């Protein structure tokens, strides 16, 4: 048992800290997704990070990664959060889908741009009619010679407004049962027949879009692996979507906590005893969450992701409740954290809702019978 870094991880961490000390200042302010300028700065930051060798390090070196264990990805996310740097590009799961399933030609064509962050990617999974029940999706790809003709609609596609490429989950095998009829296609977002419509979130965030596909022609060479394995790839991706990134999230929650603690310590914010205790309980929660996420990285059971998601949801939503209670009336009078609180309500919806996650844990971990 050892919660401390190995000497190699410690060296890696020190190297990253040194790099951040030299490069972060320029990106400390002005990134985000709320304006064109912020977006441009964010994309520059991604390229700088990639150029320094800190993106998708768990991928094999031949594709531009460094072949390192997942722990290193977590260290990067943790250190970026610690330094209050903008987050790393959320591409690990897309990179793994392509690296682990695509043929060599497609890999060499798209991975350098993805890992070097010279091209932007989005993930087209959810549809208006297929949220929790993702496998019921109806966007279709009809094979015509050496092309697929794609028709349908995606929703909640993060980053779609500016993406160059979309990793699209769609139905290509009409005669197969629902899970086995799905495939994964790499789609050029500038193709004719694609229309994007921005979705603004309840907190004003502007990273999402609906994407409409109307007779979009995609080369069959852009199929990831074979037709019919789309669901398998999607499930594989889920194990990479969280895990290491959670460490960065814990770090960011830690900053929210630290700011609240500082408000109380300095007396800027009045807090009676019950509120003080709840704040300390949040500190306990976040420590436990950090240990839990760290344990999942090295001792990963297949369903760690669902357990950790549920724990994160519980802890994050309580944290913002306490932050709001501490802020009192100020919370509804222009406190920036109100928007973060709203975002915390999405934590129990995206990436599989709280109800679905509980069902996964109950049925697949606890082995309870299906209803």
């Amino acid at each position, binding site marked *: 048992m050892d919660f401390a870094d190995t000497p190699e991880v410690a060296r890696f961490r020190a190297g990253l800290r040194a790099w951040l000390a030299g490069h972060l200042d320029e990106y400390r302010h002005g990134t985000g997704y709320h304006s064109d300028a912020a977006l441009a700065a964010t994309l520059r930051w991604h390229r700088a990070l990639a150029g320094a060798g800190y993106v998708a390090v768990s991928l094999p070196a031949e594709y531009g990664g460094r072949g390192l264990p997942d722990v290193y990805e977590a260290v990067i996310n943790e250190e970026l959060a610690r330094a209050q740097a903008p987050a790393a590009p959320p591409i690990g799961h897309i990179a793994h889908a392509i690296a682990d399933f695509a043929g060599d030609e497609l890999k060499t064509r798209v991975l350098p741009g993805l890992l070097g962050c010279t091209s932007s990617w989005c993930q087209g999974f959810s549809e208006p009619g297929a*949220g*929790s029940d993702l496998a019921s999706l109806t966007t279709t790809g009809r094979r015509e010679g050496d092309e697929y003709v794609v028709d349908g609609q995606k929703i909640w596609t993060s980053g779609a407004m500016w993406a160059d490429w979309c990793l699209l989950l769609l139905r290509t095998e009409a005669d197969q049962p629902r899970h086995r009829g799905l495939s994964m296609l790499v789609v050029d977002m500038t193709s004719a027949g694609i229309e994007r419509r921005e979705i603004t979130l309840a*907190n004003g965030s502007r990273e999402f879009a609906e994407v409409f596909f109307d007779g979009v022609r995609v080369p069959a060479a852009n199929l990831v692996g074979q037709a019919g394995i789309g669901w398998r790839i999607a499930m594989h991706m889920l194990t990479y979507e969280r895990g290491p990134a959670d460490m960065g999230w814990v770090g960011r929650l830690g900053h929210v906590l630290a700011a609240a603690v500082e408000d109380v310590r300095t007396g800027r914010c009045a807090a009676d005893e019950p509120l003080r205790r709840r704040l300390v309980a949040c500190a306990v929660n976040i420590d436990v969450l950090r240990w839990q996420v760290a344990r999942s990285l090295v001792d990963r059971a297949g369903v760690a992701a669902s357990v950790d998601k549920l724990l994160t949801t519980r802890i994050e939503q309580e944290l913002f409740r306490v932050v709001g209670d501490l802020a009192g*009336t100020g919370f509804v009078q222009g406190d920036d954290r109100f928007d973060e609180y709203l975002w915390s309500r999405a934590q129990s*919806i995206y990436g599989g809702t709280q109800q679905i996650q509980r069902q996964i844990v109950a049925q697949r971990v606890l082995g309870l019978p299906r209803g």
Partner: protein
Amino acid sequence: MEIGLDQDQRAFAEVCAKLAAELATRWSPGRGPDDTSPAEPDEVAWSRIVAAGWLAIGLDEASVVDLTVLVEQLGYHTVPAPVIGTLLAAERLRLGGAGQDLLDAIGGGEVRVAPLLRRDLTDYAGTAADAVAWDSAGAEVTHSPDGTGHHLGDPLPGADLTRRTRAVGPAAGHLALTDPGTEDRLRLTALGLTLATADLLGVMRAALDDAVEHARNRTQFGAPIGSFQAVQQLAADCLVSVEASRSALFHSAWAADALPADEAVAAARTAKAFVAPAAVEVCETAIQLLGGIGMTWESRAHVRLRRAHASRALFGDEHHQLRHLTGRLLGENGR
């Protein structure tokens, strides 16, 4: 004992609901923050409100119970018009002995007033220093207890999209007002608390209705999501909160009409302490039941959640109420 609305009150609720729903259709959150309708009612909306007598109801013979019937509908439809603010300001002026001409002009929508509340919104303000004009979209003037009128400044940033709080500007005229005295001041507090509670009940009820409607119609895994136990249990718990909140509101409103002022305030604090967190939770759960669509700007779900938070803060959140009730209930021993 006769707990519930009488026939007239039920009829009044229906009339209010009709106009509130109509006013709500004139407003939209739009596609994003830059596209949201203003919180000020337009001329047509304001004239409808005036014609309905909503602004004058507090100045006539209406009971607090009657007022809550109206305000619950304002909350239910998240009506973007400063009716509650007008009611609170008018009642303050009436108890301060303002002239009938002014009160009539307020009731007729010609003079648009806003209540002067402490910046932390926990009560009416004693002076204009560190005070704000609450629910003041489109209002022209707010009055200090000493009778000084004040112009209104810019809207302050706020979470609520359907009501505005504004800064207090320079003095504008003077009224002869008298101190209403302790008893009436307590009545004002009880009124403010009770109307905030009524707004919360309306908001949470709308959130639940919307979520239940969605759960009936939205299909996933080949069945309406409302058929899944996880969804049913959340919805059922919400209804428990709504029903209990209604009982709390009824008692609070009755107490404001019937009990001595200090007991009315205690009843109002008790109700608010229960309903404020319950309303927020129901609005949060409604978003959960809507799924992703509930997290979009275009959805009313966050409009309700925002309004619930704002009304929760109005005259103090549950923690504020519990602090008051703690002293009353436990005294100082055993600390």
